[in-house]
C-alpha cells in the first residue's frame, strides 16, 4: 500500500508539473502580448507595471528561461497576482477552496450513495414499473443541462415555494456560531449539492443497474444459490460487492466532470468557491486567476482519483496482490 501511495504521489506531481507547462504554453499561445494576458484588464492602463511583469517572468529572455521562471514560481506555490482583486491568486483560491470542497464532496457522496441505491433497486425490480421509472428519471437527469436544472431548482424551491435559500454560502452578517452556523450552511448547501449530485447520480444509477444484472449472470452467483443462501444475502454480499467495482472506476473518471460541474453550480448559486472565482475571473478577464483556478481544480481531480483508487484497492483483493 505504501509503495502504491508513493507511486501515485510521484505521478500526481508529474501531472501537476505537466499542467503547469500547459498553462505556460496557453499564455504564450494566446493572441497578443503575454504580459498583457498575465495582467488581465488591469494591465491596460499601466505600462510601468507591464515592464515589471516582463522582467519578473523574464519575458524578454529565451523561451526556456521563461518556462523555468514560470514553473518555479508555480512550484513555490506562487500562482501570480490578481491585479483585479489586488491579492495573490493563491490567497484568493485558498479562501474559496473550503466552499468548493464542501460542495463537491457532498455532491459526490450524495450521487454515489443514492445512485448505487437506486441502481440496485432498479436491477432487483428489473422489467417492472419501478425499474422503468428509475431508468427514465435517470435518463432525464442525464440529459438535463446542469445550469438550467439549477435555475429551475431556484425558481421552484426558492422563488415559488420559499423552502430553501437560493444564493450564497450562509446568511450574511447573521453572527451565527457553532452548530447554528453549520445548520445555516447546510441549508444553503441543499440546492447546489443536490443539483450537482443529480446529474452524476443518473450515471451511477445506470451503470450500477447494468453491472448488477451482469454480475447476476456469473457462475459464483449460481454457486451461492446452490448453497441455499437467501436472495437478499446473495444480492448484498456476492452481487453488489462485485458490481460496485465498475461504479468506483467510473466515479474516478468522473471526478473531472464533477469539478467542472461545480463551476456552473457555483456560478448559478453564487456559492463562494473556486468555480465562482473562475466565473468572476472570466468576467473581468483576469487570466492569472483563471489559470490558477485551473491548476488547483486539476489538483482537486487528482485528489478524487486517488480516493477512488484507494477505495478500489480496499474492495478488490486481486489488485492488492499484484
Amino acid at each position, binding site marked *: 500500500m505504501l509503495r502504491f501511495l508513493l507511486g501515485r504521489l510521484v505521478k500526481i506531481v508529474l501531472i501537476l508539473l505537466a499542467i503547469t507547462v500547459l498553462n505556460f504554453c496557453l499564455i504564450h499561445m494566446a493572441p497578443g502580448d503575454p504580459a498583457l494576458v498575465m495582467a488581465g484588464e488591469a494591465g491596460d492602463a499601466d505600462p510601468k507595471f507591464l515592464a515589471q511583469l516582463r522582467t519578473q517572468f523574464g519575458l524578454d529572455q529565451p523561451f526556456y528561461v521563461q518556462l523555468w521562471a514560470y514553473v518555479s514560481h508555480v512550484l513555490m506555490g506562487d500562482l501570480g497576482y490578481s491585479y483585479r482583486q489586488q491579492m495573490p491568486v493563491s490567497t484568493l483560491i485558498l479562501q474559496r477552496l473550503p466552499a468548493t470542497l464542501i460542495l463537491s464532496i457532498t455532491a459526490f457522496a450524495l450521487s454515489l450513495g443514492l445512485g448505487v441505491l437506486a441502481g440496485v433497486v432498479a436491477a432487483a425490480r428489473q422489467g417492472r414499473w419501478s425499474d422503468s421509472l428509475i431508468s427514465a428519471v435517470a435518463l432525464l437527469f442525464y440529459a438535463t443541462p446542469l445550469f438550467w436544472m439549477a435555475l429551475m431548482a431556484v425558481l421552484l424551491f426558492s422563488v415559488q415555494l420559499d423552502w430553501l435559500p437560493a444564493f450564497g454560502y450562509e446568511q450574511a452578517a447573521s453572527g451565527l456560531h457553532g452548530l447554528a452556523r453549520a445548520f445555516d450552511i447546510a441549508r444553503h448547501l441543499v440546492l447546489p449539492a443536490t443539483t450537482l449530485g443529480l446529474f452524476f447520480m443518473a450515471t451511477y444509477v445506470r451503470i450500477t443497474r447494468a453491472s448488477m444484472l451482469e454480475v447476476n449472470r456469473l457462475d459464483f452467483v*449460481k454457486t451461492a444459490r446452490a448453497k441455499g443462501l437467501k436472495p437478499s444475502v446473495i444480492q448484498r454480499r456476492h452481487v453488489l460487492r462485485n458490481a460496485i467495482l465498475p461504479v468506483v472506476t467510473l466515479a474516478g473518471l468522473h471526478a473531472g466532470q464533477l469539478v467542472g460541474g461545480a463551476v456552473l453550480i457555483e456560478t448559478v448559486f453564487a456559492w463562494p468557491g473556486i468555480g465562482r472565482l473562475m466565473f468572476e475571473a472570466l468576467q473581468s478577464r483576469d487570466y492569472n486567476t483563471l489559470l490558477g483556478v485551473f491548476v488547483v481544480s486539476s489538483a482537486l481531480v487528482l485528489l478524487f482519483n486517488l480516493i477512488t483508487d484507494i477505495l478500489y484497492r480496499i474492495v478488490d483483493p486481486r489488485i492488492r496482490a499484484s
Partner: protein
Amino acid sequence: MTDTPSPSVTIDHLRIALPEGADRPYAVDRVDFRLYPGKVLCVVGESGSGKSMSANALMGLLPEGVRVADGRIRLGDTDILAQDEEGMRGLRGRRMAMIFQEPMSALNPLMKIADQIAEVFEAHNLLRPAERRARALELLTEVGLPDPARAAASYPHQLSGGQRQRVVIAMALALEPEVLVADEPTTALDVTTQAQILELIRRLQVDHNMAVMFITHDFGVVAEIADHVAVMQLGRVVEEGPADTVLRNPQHAYTRKLIDAIPKLGAGRAEAPERPPLLTVEGVSKTYHLGGGLFAKSRKVEAVRDISVTLGRGETLGIVGESGSGKSSLGRCLVRLQDVSAGRIAIDGQDMTRLQGAELRALRRRVQMIFQDPFASLNPRIRVGRAIADGPIAYGTPVATAMAEAEALLERVGLPGTARRFPHEFSGGQRQRIGIARALALKPEVIVADEAVSALDVSIQAQVLDLLDELKRELGLSLIFITHDLRVAAQICDRVMVMQKGACVELGPGAQIFDAPAHAYTRSLIDAIPGRDWDQSAA
C-alpha cells in the same frame, strides 16, 4: 444380491421447455432418472443434448426463460416441483448440493475461501461463527488441500484451478447432502488434476453414501466413475443401463457412434520410416518478461526451455503437455507469431528466426497454422471465401483466381458453395474446416495445429481428424499437432514430444511413448487418462 434400496431421487417424464425461438421446443423431453444412495449416475451426451438442463432442473436452478413443462422430480418423499423458492432454498446445500464446470468463476473473487464455506452453514442457520470456521477448515482438509489453513485464508485467485474445484467440493459436502449434482466438474482441468478430482469425488461419495448425478461429455470419465449410465441425444435418453453393459456392449447406434469416435490409445502408429528432415528446431527458448514499471520489478517466465526437435517430410509430430507446459508458446514460435529468445528454427536449412520483411514473408507461407477456437479464428465481418483468399491475394494472386481457388478449397473440406457466407452461419466443426482451408490456401509444407479439435464434440472431432489425415496424405504435408489430449495424439502422431514446464521430458515414436514411457511425468500423464483400463480391456 441385496434388495434394492429406495432411490434418493426419482425423475419421471421430465420435460423442460425452452423459450420461444429456440432451435427446438424442449431442451429435455420425457426423461426418467433414478439416483440411488452410494451410486453414481453418469448422464453423458454431446453439447445441446440437454444433460445440464436435467441437472439444473433437479436443483431448481434453471436459467431464466426455461421452465419445467411436465413431469415429476422427487427427492426422497419431497416433491421438488411443488416447492416454492423458500422451500427450494431449504433443500439446496442441505439435502442436495452442486459442483460446476468452471472452478475459475464458481467462487466469489472478493471473498476469502473460509468465509465462502462458512456461508453454507449460515444459509441454514447452523452452528456459531467460530464453529463454522472450524468446520470449514476440517472440510478443506477432507478434500485434500495441501495447506488447509493457508487455503482458508486465501482469496480464490491465489489458488489453482484444481484447488478451487476442491474448495467447491468442500462447500458441497458441508451439510452432508444426500444428493450431489456434478456438472462437468473436471472438463476445465488438466488430465492429472482431473484424475485426482475424479478419485476425490469417488472416495467422498462412498464415504458419505451420497447419490451422485454426474454430467459429462467424456466416455473416458464415464468409465472411471459411473455405476449407471444414461446416454442423451437431443433431449432424450437413447440408452441407459449399468456402466459395464453400456460401455462394453452399447445397443443404440448413437452410443456406438460416440464410443467409436473416441480415439483409441492402442491404435498408435507403427514405427514410422526414416524421413528427410524439413523443419529443424535447435535449442529454442522463449522467455517472457511480465509486468514491470517504475516501481515494480518485472517477472521472468521461461515458457519454452531449450527445445530441439526435427520434423521429417510427411511426418506428424505431436506436442503434448498440460496447460502452462509451453506447448502453445513453442507452436507460436514455429510460425513466427512470436520471436524466440534463443535458438534457431530452420526450414530446409534456412533459418527463419532472424528474417524480417519480404524474406520472412516468402518463407512464412511454407508454415501455416490451424487455431484452437473455431469462434475466434474467423473475422465475423469477412465472408469465408474472402477470408481464405486473403492470403494468396496478399502474395499477389489476382483476386478472381484466389476466389476460385478458395471455392475449390471449401469444396475439398466438404463445404461446397459456401464462399459468400459469413462465419456466424457455420457450426463449430464447419468453422474448423474453414480454418483448415485457409491454412491450405497458401500451399504450405508444414501445418501447425494448435489444439485444433479440443473445442469440438467427439463425433465432430473424429470427422475433422479424418479430414486432416486425408489432406495430409493427399498433399504430402508435414504436421505438428499440439494437444493436451493424449488419446488424440496417440491416434494420429508418428512421433510425440512430451513437454513439462517449458522443457521436453520425452521424445519418441508414438507407440513407444504410450506403451513404454521412459519418464515418470509421461507415465503419470498416461496413468491419468480417464477410461484407460476400459480401453485396454476393449482392445
